[in-house]
């Protein structure tokens, strides 16, 4: 009976060793070390090697993790610690075996970069902590020790007294907070929510001026994708229509602003604000053109047709047919930005404010729409179109409304981003753009505003900030999706339904107590 958990620990050790070996083979250990050194505040130049100690940290962390996960949640303390030790030793031994191969390669001077491009001598030496043969033993030692430490840590942190203390701390803080809010003056109790909004607003106004232009650029990108995500969520999340040609609506918005507010090819120079209105209207017009014939389709068929629409739009913009009208593959250069009260938008800060306003507007619109007759009709269509129609919902009409409103959001995003980048071209509006927006909605959480913001951060913000892992973005992305589907199948921040009955009950109770007060 005891042999079973021990075998499990062996397996854990093998898995961790395999992960480490693969990380080494792809050269990811150097990237990880660079990131760790960045966390400690040491900037590493591109192409140079971070200090050795950061690689040691990674080994140590990995060993602790292996020990932690091997130790399990139940059983005798001695067994659990022993399991961590076994896992650590197994991982260490396997990595040591791998080290022997590395050492052999280094000593014989065999260059196998032809087959594994990341396997340079520097990278191998770095993995061995520049210790050569001794590194093998050091690895074995590190993993055994840290496996032990990890399991001990797990046993300690999962022990009853620590858990109990943690629970106590949590409940104490929450009661402390509720007691504090109860003792607040009535003015604050009533308007505290608005006060919080005000603080948030102030933070959003002040922070962009302090962040620096790079972070502002990233935040702006996240904001734009948030607006697009909310727009697509109206189509996909509320009305349940899988539309993959979302980039066509971006293109409509971007090209409207570009053509109306750039010196070439038409030199119309209408100014940004009229142009953005036209951008939104054009996107809606495109949605009507797409929606009227296709909104009878369902599921896969709709996805394919709309995907085709997006590609046709992009290829048309790229082709020579419209070269005189839209500038062809070169795109539109030097698009002018907006001016407000005589002040032209020049810095990233200005655009961040504009984008924040757009995000606020879209959240406002989304919230109002989803708690309405229209919003409920959309949800009904998503859940069961046949039953929805039999309760009186006109399917075509409501699907079309959803598509148009979603497209309007996309037109806004396209217009703003064209002005912000001062450029738009056919390659800004590929299928990948549509898929990015769709995946951020799904990763974040369908029908959930915080989820969509989180998703935009995770999918657009993080890759920008973590430039080092750029080469591994697809890899990390795949891993993220798998982990997410296992851990949080409803998205990072899943949505919940409104509790109308409860709300109503508390309202009527309030009214009753009010009346009671009057009677007395």
């Amino acid at each position, binding site marked *: 009976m005891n042999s079973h958990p021990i075998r499990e620990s062996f397996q854990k050790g093998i898995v961790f060793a395999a992960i480490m070996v693969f990380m080494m083979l792809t050269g990811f250990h150097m990237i990880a070390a660079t990131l760790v050194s960045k966390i400690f505040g040491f900037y590493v130049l591109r192409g140079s090697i971070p200090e050795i100690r950061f690689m040691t940290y990674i080994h140590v962390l990995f060993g602790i993790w292996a020990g932690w996960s091997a130790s399990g949640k139940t059983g005798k303390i001695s067994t659990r610690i022993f399991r961590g030790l076994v896992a650590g030793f197994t991982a260490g031994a396997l990595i040591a075996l791998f080290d022997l191969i590395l050492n052999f390669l280094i000593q014989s001077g065999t260059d196998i970069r032809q087959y594994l491009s990341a396997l340079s001598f520097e990278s191998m030496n770095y993995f061995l902590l520049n210790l050569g043969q001794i590194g093998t033993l050091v690895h074995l030692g590190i993993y055994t020790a840290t496996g032990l430490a990890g399991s001990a840590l797990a046993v300690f942190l999962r022990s009853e007294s620590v858990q109990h203390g943690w629970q106590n701390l949590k409940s104490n803080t929450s009661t402390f907070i509720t007691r504090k809010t109860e003792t607040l003056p009535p003015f604050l109790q009533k308007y505290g929510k608005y006060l919080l909004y005000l603080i948030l607003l102030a933070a959003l106004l002040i922070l962009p001026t302090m962040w620096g232009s790079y972070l502002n650029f990233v935040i702006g990108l996240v904001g734009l994708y948030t607006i697009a995500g909310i727009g697509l969520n109206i189509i996909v999340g509320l009305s349940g229509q899988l539309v993959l040609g979302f980039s066509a609506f971006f293109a409509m918005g971007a090209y409207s602003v570009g053509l109306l507010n750039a010196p070439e090819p038409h030199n119309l120079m209408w100014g940004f604000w009229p142009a953005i209105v036209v951008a939104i209207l054009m996107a809606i017009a495109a949605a009507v053109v797409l929606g009227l014939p296709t909104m009878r389709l369902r599921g896969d068929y709709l996805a394919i047709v709309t995907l085709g629409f997006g590609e046709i739009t992009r290829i048309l913009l790229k082709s020579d047919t419209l070269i005189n009208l839209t500038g062809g593959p070169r795109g539109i250069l030097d698009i002018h930005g907006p001016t407000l009260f005589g002040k032209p938008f020049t810095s990233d800060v200005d655009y961040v404010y504009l984008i924040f306003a757009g995000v606020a507007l879209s959240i406002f*619109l989304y919230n*109002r*729409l989803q*708690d*309405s*007759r*229209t*919003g*409920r*009709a959309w*949800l*009904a269509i998503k*859940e*069961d179109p*046949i*039953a*929805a*129609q*039999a*309760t*009186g*919902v*006109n*399917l075509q009409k409501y699907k079309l*409304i959803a598509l148009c*409103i979603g497209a309007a959001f996309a037109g806004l995003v396209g217009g703003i981003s064209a002005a912000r980048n001062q450029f738009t071209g056919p390659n800004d509006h590929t299928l990948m753009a549509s898929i990015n927006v769709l995946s951020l909605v799904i990763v974040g959480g369908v029908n959930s505003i915080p989820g969509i913001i989180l998703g935009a951060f995770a999918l657009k913000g993080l890759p920008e900030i973590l430039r080092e892992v750029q080469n591994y973005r697809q890899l990390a992305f795949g891993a993220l999706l798998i982990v997410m589907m296992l851990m949080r199948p409803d998205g990072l921040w899943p949505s919940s*339904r*409104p*509790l*109308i*009955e*409860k709300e*109503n009950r508390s309202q009527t109770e309030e009214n009753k107590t009010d009346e009671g007060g009057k009677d007395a």
Partner: protein
Amino acid sequence: MPDIIIETKEVSKLFGGLTAVNMVNLEIPKYSIYSIIGPNGAGKTTLFNCISGFYTPETGEILYFGESIHGSATDFIASIGISRTYQNIRLFSNLTALENIMVGQHTKLKSSWLDAILHTPRFSKENKKSRSEAIRLLKYIGLVNFGDFLACNLPYGMQRRLEIGRALANEPQLLLLDEPTAGMNPHETKEMIKLIRQLRDELEISIILIEHDMRVVMDISDQISVLDYGKKIAEGTPKEIQANPMVIEAYLGPGGAALAKKYQDRRRKNA
């Protein structure tokens, strides 16, 4: 006749070579509970689907208050006061019970998406009314305190009731119930019979009922039609239907009527 709420005139529906409904004539009086029975595959649900507009019959006409609704869209038919439930429950499973009812009110509300964005007076007034109305209906179907449950998390009997609640939110004149007591235990069945009676007596709704449970059918129906292979083979009060040899043969096969008579006689002798 003004007392007829809905009338089918020689309605036929074909699926390829199969005649699912064959020249069926029905006249459903106002404020009655009218049952349609018949063996599996007799075309009962197909007839319902013709009335509620899912199918357009190949021949014949359907008259609602004397006016033809032949070929009308399903949502239009719902908007003129014909609601229905389904044999296999079709609730909006990821919406709460109350939201399901509020979707049911769709045709009774007028505010558009623009009203919702601008929060016009019309929207606020309707929103308030719709909520209180939904909560009232929730009480009526006996789901108080279950209003915030997701429909898919409700027990089976409640899901059936909720489906009726959603149909009632449309303030229908005619309610089509497709096997409302299917899969229910005796207690739930009793409650359901009570509810159906209430609908007719209190809300003055005419009801067409498809049902396999003969105790239910014979208990609450004012009139019964029997379909077999798409054809109407009998019509009448529960007593008449019970005695009709055609009906017994439809259920028990040829020779069934004689067999049934034999057993009845033997039982009488023993008693």
